[in-house]
């Protein structure tokens, strides 16, 4: 049973980490766009 | 403009430069020697065991050493931006690719010739199977390493990290060839199994990647 939960947990951990990376990517992009508008 | 004529002069030029500086061959030789000695220290082997693993060791040593030579041949073209002189000329890119590949093939072949006696001495080797299979495996395996290596060398010198990137992209791609080389070598050394399949595999691998390399090299060379 613990192997089962570990596998499901790890699957979602990897996917969530990737989602966080993507979100941060968008965050950086938003800053860049702000930069573009500033001056 | 003949592809072969330019191939020949480019190769002659590379060999002359290497003969004068001996940069690639010296560093490669010493590197390979170190690998062999360190492996030999790390494992205490019987003749039978060394026959089992020597195939793997020799190809790993060659792979690592080849990277040194591959980086050198392209680094030479980068100094003073000489590569640009080739790129502005109407000379075909394929000539440069083949000349570099053949040059690297010769360096690694010299290395193989010098390393074989070393291996025999250090690992107490004696082949059970036919020796000509080993020669064939070393030729085909050598080409498989350098044809990809030369192509990726041309890619990696274009990047920020230059020399560091080459092993990172070359090693994973070389894994199937490496498995076949090790398979052919081990089965010949131990006399177990046939070296036929891995040799055919290597032959196909060589042909496919030489063609892909020839096809894409101009794109990579002119990319800027």
């Amino acid at each position, binding site marked *: 049973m613990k192997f089962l939960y570990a596998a499901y947990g790890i699957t979602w951990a990897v996917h969530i980490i990737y989602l966080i990376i993507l979100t941060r990517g968008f965050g950086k992009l938003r800053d860049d766009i702000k930069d573009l508008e500033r001056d | 403009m003949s592809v072969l004529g330019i191939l020949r002069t480019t190769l002659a030029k590379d060999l002359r430069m290497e003969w004068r500086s001996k940069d690639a061959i010296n560093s490669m030789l010493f590197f390979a020697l170190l690998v062999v000695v360190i492996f030999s220290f790390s494992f205490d082997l019987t003749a039978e065991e060394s026959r089992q693993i020597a195939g793997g060791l020799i190809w790993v040593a060659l792979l690592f050493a080849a990277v040194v030579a591959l980086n050198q041949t392209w680094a030479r073209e980068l100094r003073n931006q000489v590569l640009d002189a080739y790129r502005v*000329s109407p000379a075909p890119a394929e000539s440069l690719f083949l000349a570099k590949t053949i040059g690297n093939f010769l360096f690694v072949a010299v290395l193989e010739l010098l390393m074989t006696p070393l291996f025999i001495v250090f690992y107490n080797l004696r082949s059970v199977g036919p020796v000509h299979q080993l020669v064939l495996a070393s030729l085909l395996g050598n080409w498989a390493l350098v044809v990809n290596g030369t192509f990726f060398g041309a890619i990696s010198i274009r990047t920020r990290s230059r020399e560091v990137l080459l092993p990172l992209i070359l090693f994973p791609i070389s894994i199937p060839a490496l498995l076949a080389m090790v398979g052919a070598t081990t089965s010949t050394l131990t006399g177990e199994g046939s070296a036929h399949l891995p040799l055919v595999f290597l032959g196909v691998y060589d042909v496919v990647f030489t063609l892909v390399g020839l096809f894409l090299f101009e794109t990579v060379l002119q990319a*800027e």
Partner: protein
Amino acid sequence: MTLTPDNPAVSLNDVSKLYGRFAALRMVTADFAPGRLYLILGENGAGKSTLLRVIAGLIEPSHGKLTILGSSDHKAVKAHLGYMAHASMLYDELSGRENLAYFANLYGIREHALCAQAIRTVGLDPTLERRVGQYSQGMRQRLSLARAILNDPRILLLDEPFSNVDVGSAKEMTRLLGSMRDSGKTIFLVTHQPALLEGFADESVYMSAGRVIERVDHRAPTLEAKR
């Protein structure tokens, strides 16, 4: 020298080159008539070298169209181009003669006399056995010029040919360029020392921030065209 705008040696149409967030060339549209010596001037980072490299075919433009000697297929005109950069583009480990023999070969030139001729043209001794690595900066620069003119190019692109060259050599090179222009070649020269070419240049092309901002015709001062 008459301008032939219908038949320019080099023609750029909206050519841009972007490197990520940096534009080295931005929408450059310009025609260059043949048989003239163009001085390309501007501050560092104005896009002068990029312009030369684009014409030389070393850099693919991100946008726009480039026509050289009436052809938009760059490969077809490579044999008619000569390019010289800041760096020597020579092998330090080979002698001057070996270097030129190799590069001549890339253009399908096999006569050794021609290499010797090119070396003599720039005022060097073709029998010199020394490796290029041991040449002085001035000698290297001259040999580099010899390499660029080996194939008798119709368009010659020179990026800072006089940097680190003594004034005497520079004058000599300038005279050589002048006579090449007079024989009908089109020459583009990027330099920080326009004074050296006083009287030789036909036109000055001013660049700033990736654009051609002004062109001054020295041969027909009344027609001074602003762009």
